[in-house]
């Protein structure tokens, strides 16, 4: 079942949490709020699209600690930090560790919603790229070893005749392999196939 894009809010302050959820809802953005970093982690799934609005200072695991934990788990969810302290060094640290943005409390609704929307767009883009890459990878994995060999040689620009010589098979056999590769990879042209190998980061000698 496809997961719905969600804006997650993690803040220990009840009023901030509640008001943020309402504000996002009023802007048509589905939001889920958590009172602690741990509570968020407990339900978090890497496939869940969305973004995270995260308070910097919280009892227990702080916002910055949650960020590094997510990084450790290879999460790609964009994080918008919010803080009542508004301390610049902390903001810098957060951004250096890959935070999407930083907002001092209190903030205007446009400032927040703009950022949230950009974060969601970035997340969607990231996920799309990731899914494409994963699809590509699984298609590549479905090739037989001989087909993978042919793919490599084709994208190196070798003619069927040369490949037949290299592989010690007939030119006809090479043509059949080549057609299978194009079909399995879902490529409509040689150029498209070359692009795929670049995205897959195989065939580095090209």
């Amino acid at each position: 079942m496809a997961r719905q894009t969600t804006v997650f809010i993690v803040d220990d302050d009840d009023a901030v949490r509640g008001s943020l959820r309402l504000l996002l809802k009023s802007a048509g953005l589905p939001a889920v709020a958590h009172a602690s970093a741990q509570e968020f982690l407990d339900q978090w799934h890497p496939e869940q699209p969305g973004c995270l609005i995260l308070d910097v200072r919280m009892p227990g695991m702080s916002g910055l600690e949650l960020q590094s934990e997510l990084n450790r788990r290879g999460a790609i969810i964009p994080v918008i930090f919010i803080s009542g302290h508004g301390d610049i060094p902390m903001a810098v640290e957060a951004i250096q560790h890959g935070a999407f943005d930083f907002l001092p409390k209190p903030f205007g609704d446009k400032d927040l919603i703009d950022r949230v929307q950009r974060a969601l767009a970035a997340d969607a883009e990231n996920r799309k790229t990731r899914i494409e890459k994963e699809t590509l990878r699984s298609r590549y994995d479905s090739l037989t070893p001989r087909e993978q060999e042919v793919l490599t040689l084709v994208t190196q620009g070798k003619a069927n005749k040369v490949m037949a010589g290299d592989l010690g098979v007939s030119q006809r056999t090479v043509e059949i392999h080549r057609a299978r590769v194009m079909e399995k990879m879902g490529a409509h042209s040689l150029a498209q196939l070359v692009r795929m190998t670049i995205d897959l980061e195989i065939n580095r000698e090209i």
Partner: protein
Amino acid sequence: MALNPENSAVQRDLQALLDATVDAVVVIDARGRIESFNRAGERLFGYSQGEVLGCNVSMLMTDIDRQAHDSYMERYMGTGVAHIIGIGREVDARRKDGSVFPVFLSVGQVPGSDPPRFVGLLHDITLRREAMASIRRERDRANLYLEIAQVFLLALSAERRVQLVNRKGCDVLGRREMDILGRDWLDVAVPEDQRDLVLAELAALAERPMHEERYFEHEVLATDGRRRLIAWRCLAMRNASGELIGYFASGEDVTDARRDAEDAALAQQRITQVGRLATMGEMAAGIAHELNQPLAAIANYANAALRMTATDGVTAAGDEDLHLALHQISQQALRAGEIIRRLRALVQNRETRLELANLNELIVEVLSFLQSDIRHGEVRVIRELGVDIPIALLDKIQIQQILLNLIRNAIEALTECPAPNRELRVASRYDGESNLFIEIIDRGPGVPDELISRIFDPFCTTKATGTGLGLAISRTIAEAHQGRLFYEPAQEGGSRFILQLPYRRGNA
């Protein structure tokens, strides 16, 4: 047997008397010739009677006196004015073997003799001389002690007249001994505003039994008008019958020490002030955070309401005003947030001042500031200061502020446990590369588990009267130094705070 040979009983008695006396008795005629010489004379001078009778008395004298003697005699004969007769004086006498010894010489004229005859009585004073010399030596030695003493020594009579003052005393007052001796101590050294104090102390001493000391301090006035503060130990002196005969006092000039103590107190005050400023900063930070949360909520709620009314479509007549009101709520909340931000920036504007400093010296200084708390709390302090701690760039005041907070906390924690366990360990070390460490370890109750994650948060405190800001400030300062301050439960129970500071060497 030179006396007139009339063998009367009186003469025999006289001779016996002369022979029995321990002093030499010599009778001479007007020309100085010896007429009589007793046994003691023989014993003292080593001459027999026969050797001296008829000889000039100068044979018993040293060369110097010998020449003078004839002229003394002539003068007396000529003028009749006696310089020695009936007075006596100490002179040197010479034995037969040439050795010289001191005698006390009394001279008298034999009454009615004409030409005059004289009787000389010579009392050997060798022993007395030696005794005198050794007394003088002792006295000189005692004086030397007085002179080299680094304390002010003073003896006063019962009427406060100065009877003795040593060199140190003279130095302090800037006066010569002769200008002090015999004068009233109050007049010579005590400024007017201190006199009642001195009189009261002396009066109190006069009431005390002998050997009971009193300690007091008063200022003395030097001739250059400067005042010095002297701490006195003073005794009343009494004679055998217990009457007060005076006072003896030794005083230490504590002016400089007192000033040093005041300087230290001032330095501490300065630290406390910086601490207060830091506290204000942290308080502002704390308040800012506490206020920014509800302000954020207000702005969010207002904006949410604004959006909801807008998306529902502007229909009712009053909606425009509602719109404006909601917009204003959100704008005013943002404005309040801005005011807080500016206020915070204002208070926080204390830049760190880095200077080269020795971490160990900072520790020792802080411990000395807290000396009275440590003593009062009966806390044993164990210093484990690394010997290889390099001089580093630090903000001395701020680091001391952290140490002051941590050590004060430790002392307070320790006063909760029995005295034998009140042990505070202050250690410093250098990891040889880029970090300096200070550890403050106490064997107090430690931090309760449920609080460990929050002790550095502002307003978190376990103390009834604490502000909950000390550790928060300390951590803020440590972080401003790109350092760290963290807590670990100590192994033997109690707390262990570790301050880690980056080692920055100077631009050498």
